[in-house]
């Protein structure tokens, strides 16, 4: 697939928006390929944080003074931007959380308490991050329910046939990711959701690896919950969203108690606030939420289609380049992938490769990527993972391949 001419020239400009990228690491230009862990931040996001603290800082929703109103307005504007970004029905369906981990914990705790009973089943896939495994283990233990695992194929795809067999009248919740952090596989979440709904189960989608890379339309997917982390999509750390269908969020008990989430408090009985505030106890992460809006703007400003095309070009290029090296074995070769290339090199520990690449200024991730069960599935200890963002280039992939070849030559 050819790179759209307009975007290839724009990448230079896009890179200039990321101050962190212009530095040298160990004497060489930084090559940042750890985007699946966290992406770098464009100037407009950083500036929004600075502006907030310099001009606006106030607690939201309760204050009646000018700064409080300004902060509240900016905070609620991000909620509306998030709604539009994922095409939710209403802004009340957007709950601000610390990130995907908290979003999943919220649902696993609150929804399970109300709707998961003894003998019920929760289904997740073998492709999940620990943050989409452990909360469900806790919930199942608490409610005496059973956790079922959809196997993955050799290529790293969710086995839909096996999934179909796991679904039953006992299934209450299905939780899978939109895209895999370790392998990059894009999962058929609309189909997974349709199959779950046919059995009366609700569906949660972990969108951590989709936010910066894929189109997200919760109405088209028809999922019941969808989670995003801001920091993996050019936004600040410490914030993210949980989308939930209103009727489900209304029916769920509060997750945490405190200020902001209540209507009236007496020692006899407390009544809870309306959505979304029912789930936002205490003073939230106001600054980061406000700056998160700029991350949505940044992505939409370039255009999700253009981003996808550019990252797909990088994925194809890296897959060919690294895949053709004799001792390199790619892990995860699904036809539908985001820009993630995971690999192992015969006879060389991923950690050594990571250290060696770092010495050349190239940042990759090594290890199990918080997906130990998946590593077990492939009978490996870990992989080296290069994950791409809109600011990466083919030239950087060449540098990765060169560094990799050097370590292979040395060891072999």
């Amino acid at each position, binding site marked *: 697939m050819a790179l759209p001419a307009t975007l290839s020239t724009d990448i230079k400009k896009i890179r200039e928006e990321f101050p962190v990228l212009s530095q040298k690491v160990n004497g060489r230009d930084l090559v940042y390929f750890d985007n699946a862990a966290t992406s770098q931040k464009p100037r407009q996001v950083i500036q929004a944080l600075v502006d907030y603290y310099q001009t606006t800082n106030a607690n939201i929703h309760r204050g009646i003074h000018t700064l409080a109103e300004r902060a509240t307005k900016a905070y609620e504007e991000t909620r509306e931007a998030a709604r539009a970004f994922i095409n939710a029905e209403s802004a009340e369906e957007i709950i601000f959380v610390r990130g995907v981990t908290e979003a999943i914990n919220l649902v696993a705790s609150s929804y399970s308490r109300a709707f998961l009973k003894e003998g019920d089943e929760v289904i997740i896939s073998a492709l999940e991050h620990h943050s989409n495994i452990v909360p469900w283990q806790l919930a199942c233990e608490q409610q005496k329910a059973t956790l079922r695992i959809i196997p993955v194929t050799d290529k790293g795809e969710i086995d839909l046939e096996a999934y179909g067999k796991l679904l039953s009248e006992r299934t209450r919740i299905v939780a899978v990711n939109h895209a895999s952090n370790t392998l990059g596989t894009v999962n058929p979440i609309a189909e997974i959701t349709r199959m779950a709904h046919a059995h009366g189960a609700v569906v949660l989608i972990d969108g951590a690896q989709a936010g910066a890379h894929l189109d997200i339309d919760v109405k088209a997917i028809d999922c019941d919950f969808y989670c995003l982390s801001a920091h993996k999509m050019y936004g600040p750390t410490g914030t993210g969203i949980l989308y939930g269908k209103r009727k489900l969020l209304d029916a769920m008990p509060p997750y945490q108690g405190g200020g902001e989430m209540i209507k009236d408090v007496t020692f006899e009985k407390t009544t809870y606030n309306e959505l979304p505030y029912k789930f936002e106890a205490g003073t939230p992460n106001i600054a980061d939420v406000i700056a998160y809006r700029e991350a949505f703007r940044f992505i939409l400003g370039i255009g999700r289609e253009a981003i996808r095309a550019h990252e797909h070009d990088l994925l194809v290029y890296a897959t060919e380049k690294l895949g053709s090296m004799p001792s390199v074995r790619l892990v995860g070769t699904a036809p539908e992938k985001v820009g993630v290339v995971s690999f192992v090199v015969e006879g060389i520990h991923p950690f050594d490769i990571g250290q060696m690449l770092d*010495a050349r200024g190239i940042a990759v991730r090594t290890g199990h990527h918080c997906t130990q069960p998946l590593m077990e599935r492939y009978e490996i200890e870990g992989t080296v993972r290069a994950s791409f963002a809109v600011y990466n280039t083919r030239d950087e992939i060449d540098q990765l391949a060169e560094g990799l070849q050097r370590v292979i030559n040395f060891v072999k």
Partner: protein
Amino acid sequence: MNDETPRSIAAIQDEIIADFALLDDDAEMKVLYVMELGQKLPPMPEKDKSEENIVKGCQSRVWLTARLESDRVYFTADSNTAITKGLVSLLIRIFNGQKPDAILASDLHFMNAIGMERFIGTQRSNGFSAMIRQMKMYALAFKTKMEIGS
């Protein structure tokens, strides 16, 4: 029996620091050199690569055993990663043939001096500390054994 006095721990550290100074502060050269040192480490018997010989706290797997010959301590080690193995080989170069007291009293400053902690990373540095701690534990055990025996 080995009665000759080995060079002091401080002198060996100085020698390592001088070796690394030849690499012109080139991060890649340093990593390659450390890996090369690891390749030269005498092999550890497979039977010693057991669960109980794993050094806890290291991110990569490290096995360590020690023995006392006369009043001197000798370590054998291996790791599943080349860089760790190289770093471990440096510790063995420093400690092998020393008396338990000298190991216990040692102050290892060479890691900072060769600029290793700068790119080995925090987790690995912790692992390295665990390795040193374990070696000192062995030295303490041998010291105690010698005192009881005498």
